[in-house]
């Protein structure tokens, strides 16, 4: 039951992401096709295309940077030694703790 719920969650995430990427890209693909249909005397503005691309890529780079650095900041904050949540050892720490009595039972 839980497995099905996780599957559904993953599917939902994947579909949402694909939909967002498609929504971001479809207008550009349509625009490119329309540009090809224009009369022979209308040309694309290379400067505008190149600078627009530069700003879009900068936005993407800052987004990735924010995600990665945000995750790292959260990790450091959440798992710091002084966090009250870290007073009790986690189940994984408890398992590896020889004084907890389960170390040898695990076969190490």
């Amino acid at each position, binding site marked *: 039951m839980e497995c099905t719920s*996780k599957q559904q969650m993953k599917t939902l995430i994947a579909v949402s*992401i694909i939909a967002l*990427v498609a929504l971001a890209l479809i207008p*550009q*693909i349509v625009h490119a096709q329309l*540009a090809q249909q224009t009369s022979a005397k209308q040309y*694309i503005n290379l400067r505008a*295309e*190149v600078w627009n691309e530069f700003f879009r890529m900068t936005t993407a780079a800052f987004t990735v940077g924010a995600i990665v650095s945000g995750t790292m900041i959260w990790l450091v904050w959440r798992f710091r030694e002084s966090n009250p949540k870290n007073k009790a050892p986690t189940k994984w720490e408890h398992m590896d703790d020889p004084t907890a009595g389960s170390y040898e039972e695990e076969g190490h």
Partner: protein
Amino acid sequence: MGHDTAEWVFVAIVIAVLCYVGVDSWIVQKAVEDVPADAEVIKVTGQQWYWSFEHADGTKEISTLHVKKGHAYKFEIYSRDVMHSFNIPDWVVFEDAVPGHTNHAWFAPDQAGTYPIQCREYCGLLHYNMRGSLVVEDDKS
């Protein structure tokens, strides 16, 4: 939300951003490199230390290139001696001139005026002076 879900979201967002970057760059590169069918060919020759140009009708120019506003031009760029790089900064034209090999670039000026042409690859003693001018004229025809 468990760890598992958070990791999936993290991975999915990064993959989505990378997909976006790849597809978007591909679309723009295709649009930028797609030379219009009616573009007039101009042969550009780089040699120490000046640029020479040959229009489709055989007209030759040295250092100063005259073109018409509202027309598309395709540059066939090559070099007679060493590596040069043909650059018109104001029109985003930037392509290496390589001996024994022809490179291509195109542009369609939509503003009349005079713009600098320069060599962007160090090509010897007088590289700094390997400059030219692009003159975009109003099309009166």
